[in-house]
């Protein structure tokens, strides 16, 4: 049997595009003070949400977001056949503990901040392949647990450079169904790792930009689409520095996406007012923007066809200390309201 759904080098075109029938997003206080506040299902006042540790709080955010999404889809947890979820913590523990009580078959993923598009890709392929009727893709991140894992203690007095990004506290969950009236996931371009030797973990946008540009360029090559095919091309968390670089890298290859291009990390915070430096980041950034803002804009018809790319910086604290550079990755998913 040959792979009939492949398109070009890195893309698949889904034969039976699954429909996103519901989404949910729960975010922290700072995100709730940002420009997208009205799009989220719930905004938390307390970084711990009644839990004892940040890690427990993150798992709770993921779990409650998944439950909310299932409820909004008017389904029960037993209807869901797979969960694809990931986060930033060691051994994916945010997700492992988040889905522990849900009793749903679970694929744990690590793609750093690219995990939302990674999970959405795999979930969509699973439904398209006829392996499930209802699947969830979800991710989470928590500012405090991520800082603890990757950087300095919260109370440590240090200065953040202007290229640094702010990890989003929040989670987004998407319910995919074999049957539905859209928006549909139609194309998936899976990114490959691109590493141009950036070592500064405070400049992840620059580390991820070449992979984002590579995936976008390959997506257009594979599908024959042009930037004008889309109402919006939105990356996960390149933030200001990474977004500008990606745009320029593509321009150099004769591909101008400046009209449609924005970034979830720039959407979720008002960098000037909220002092988030270059912008938001984290698994929860693209997830909550997709599940909150983008999904509503799609269903209300303000957007009809978008290219959603989550971008990941695949370093670990260990590799950073050993002087390794930061491998970047970006996965793209086409989401559209109608099927041609």
């Amino acid at each position, binding site marked *: 049997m040959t792979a009939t759904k492949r398109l070009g080098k890195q893309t698949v075109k889904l034969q039976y595009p699954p429909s996103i029938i519901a989404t949910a997003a729960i975010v922290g206080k700072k995100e709730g003070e940002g420009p997208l506040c009205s799009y989220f299902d719930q905004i938390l006042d307390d970084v711990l949400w009644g839990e*004892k540790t940040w890690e427990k709080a993150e798992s709770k955010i993921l779990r409650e977001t998944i439950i909310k999404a299932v409820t909004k889809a008017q389904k029960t947890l037993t209807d869901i056949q797979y969960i694809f979820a990931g986060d930033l913590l060691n051994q994916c523990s945010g997700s492992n503990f988040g889905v522990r009580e849900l009793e749903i078959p679970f694929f744990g993923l690590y793609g750093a901040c690219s995990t939302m598009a990674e999970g959405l890709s795999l979930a969509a392929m699973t439904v398209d392949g006829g392996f499930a009727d209802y699947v969830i893709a979800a991710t989470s991140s928590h500012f405090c647990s991520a800082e*603890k894992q990757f950087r300095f203690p919260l*109370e440590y007095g240090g200065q953040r450079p*202007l290229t640094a990004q702010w990890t989003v506290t929040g989670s987004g969950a998407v319910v995919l169904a074999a049957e539905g009236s859209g928006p549909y996931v139609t194309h998936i371009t899976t990114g490959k790792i691109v590493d141009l030797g950036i070592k500064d973990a405070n400049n992840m946008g620059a580390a991820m930009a070449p992979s984002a540009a590579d995936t976008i360029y390959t997506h257009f090559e594979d599908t024959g689409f042009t930037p004008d095919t889309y109402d919006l091309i939105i990356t996960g968390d390149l933030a200001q520095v990474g977004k500008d*670089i990606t745009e320029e890298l593509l321009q150099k290859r004769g591909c101008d996406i400046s009209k449609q291009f924005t970034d979830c990390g720039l959407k979720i915070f008002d960098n000037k007012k909220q002092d988030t430096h270059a912008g938001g980041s984290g698994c929860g950034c693209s997830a909550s923007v997709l599940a909150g803002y983008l999904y509503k804009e799609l269903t209300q018809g303000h957007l009809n066809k978008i290219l959603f790319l989550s971008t990941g910086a695949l370093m670990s604290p260990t590799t950073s200390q050993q002087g390794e550079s930061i491998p970047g990755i970006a996965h793209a998913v086409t989401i559209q309201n109608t099927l041609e």
Partner: protein
Amino acid sequence: MEQNFTQKEYQKYVQKKSPNSPIIKNVIMAFVIGGLICVVGQIISNYFKSRGLSTEDVAGATAISMIFLGALLTGLDIYDGLAKYAGAGTIVPITGFANAIVSPAMEFKSEGYVLGMGAKMFVIAGPVLVYGITASVVVGIIFFLVGN
């Protein structure tokens, strides 16, 4: 895509594209706030002197007081806010050393008092202790051999 740039070219390009920290503003803030911390230290030192402590005891008591203040302000969630503006001005004084020990201690308390707080409170300040003590031993040996 990536054949557009060699790694070196890309790193140069990124440096150009990345906004620089406002160095002059940072230096001035570090000077002012760091200076103010030193003024507080001097006031405390003068106070101890006025109470009749010996010069050596004044130095010790002042350091202890400043470390206490640094730890207290860290615990009250004030020190990191100050440091955001002061930068090196809050890292260099002894209060910064207290902050570097107290902040991980607070953070890792959730992993227990022994392997969490006890072990990890030195993740930032540990190297200062290791190399500081090592250097003082080396200097001591040199002084012992040459000084007499």
